[in-house]
């Protein structure tokens, strides 16, 4: 998703979601990439595997309740229940509005607008079952990041890197990033509120002589 934002691929993915992945010219995007992860690409792994049949599929998994908590605290919170800062950003900045719209589109399509723990875990588990059932075994690895480099590198036929397995994009880091991102929106919102209160006080003092 960060790549979608960084390179403004919002229109491509919005269009792809609208078409349900049918008749999409995937090569416009994927000829420039060697790997995908995360939403929205994971929703269309079958289409991409058909187009790039020698591809290898990595099915990242984790304990469903922990996954749900992580989603609820970050992506669901910021997309479905945006903060004041995000709300202001969406109102002011066109890109923010488009990105938020696409992110919400992904969530609604994936979870049918039901963000309860039970429904999300059910969708999560069904997705895992579906990938395991539909992907050719020789092209698939089910992988949890806590397993580290070895199974991943063995599957990809690559040597194990001489560095620790990365630890990035955890909940705290993502929340901090969202807070920084919404900083301008917060400043604008609270400035407007402050000026409005000051203005009302000034008007009250001037015309009502209540001070």
């Amino acid at each position: 998703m960060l790549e979608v934002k960084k390179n403004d691929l919002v229109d491509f993915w919005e269009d792809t979601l609208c078409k349900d992945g049918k008749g999409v010219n995937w090569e416009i995007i994927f000829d420039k990439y060697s790997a995908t992860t995360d939403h929205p690409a994971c929703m269309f792994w079958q289409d991409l595997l058909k187009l790039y049949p020698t591809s290898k599929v990595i099915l990242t998994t984790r304990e469903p309740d922990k996954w749900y908590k992580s989603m609820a605290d970050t992506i669901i919170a910021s997309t479905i229940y945006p903060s004041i800062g995000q709300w202001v950003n969406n109102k002011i900045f066109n890109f923010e509005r488009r990105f938020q719209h696409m992110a919400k589109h992904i969530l609604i399509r994936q979870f049918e607008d039901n963000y309860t723990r039970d429904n999300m875990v059910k969708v999560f588990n069904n997705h895992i079952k579906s990938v395991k059932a539909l992907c050719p075994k020789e092209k698939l690895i089910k992988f949890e990041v806590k397993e580290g480099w070895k199974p991943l590198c063995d599957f990809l036929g690559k040597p194990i890197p001489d560095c620790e397995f990365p630890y990035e994009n955890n909940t705290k880091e993502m929340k901090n990033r969202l807070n920084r991102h919404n900083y301008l929106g917060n400043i604008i919102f609270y400035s407007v509120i402050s000026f409005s209160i000051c203005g009302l006080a000034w008007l009250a003092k001037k015309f009502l002589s209540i001070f």
Partner: protein
Amino acid sequence: MNCGTTTTSTFISTNSDNHQTDENTSQIKNNEKTLILGAGFARTGTTSLNKEGS
């Protein structure tokens, strides 16, 4: 471009895991490029080897 506007129902389509891909057949050309396809959901591949979870 934006098919989904304000209503939820316009966003919801059929089961995403089973959507048909026949209409994409025309663009399949035995592409030899090998992609690494992450098929897992968001927030599943972001935790560390040693830490419990994000």
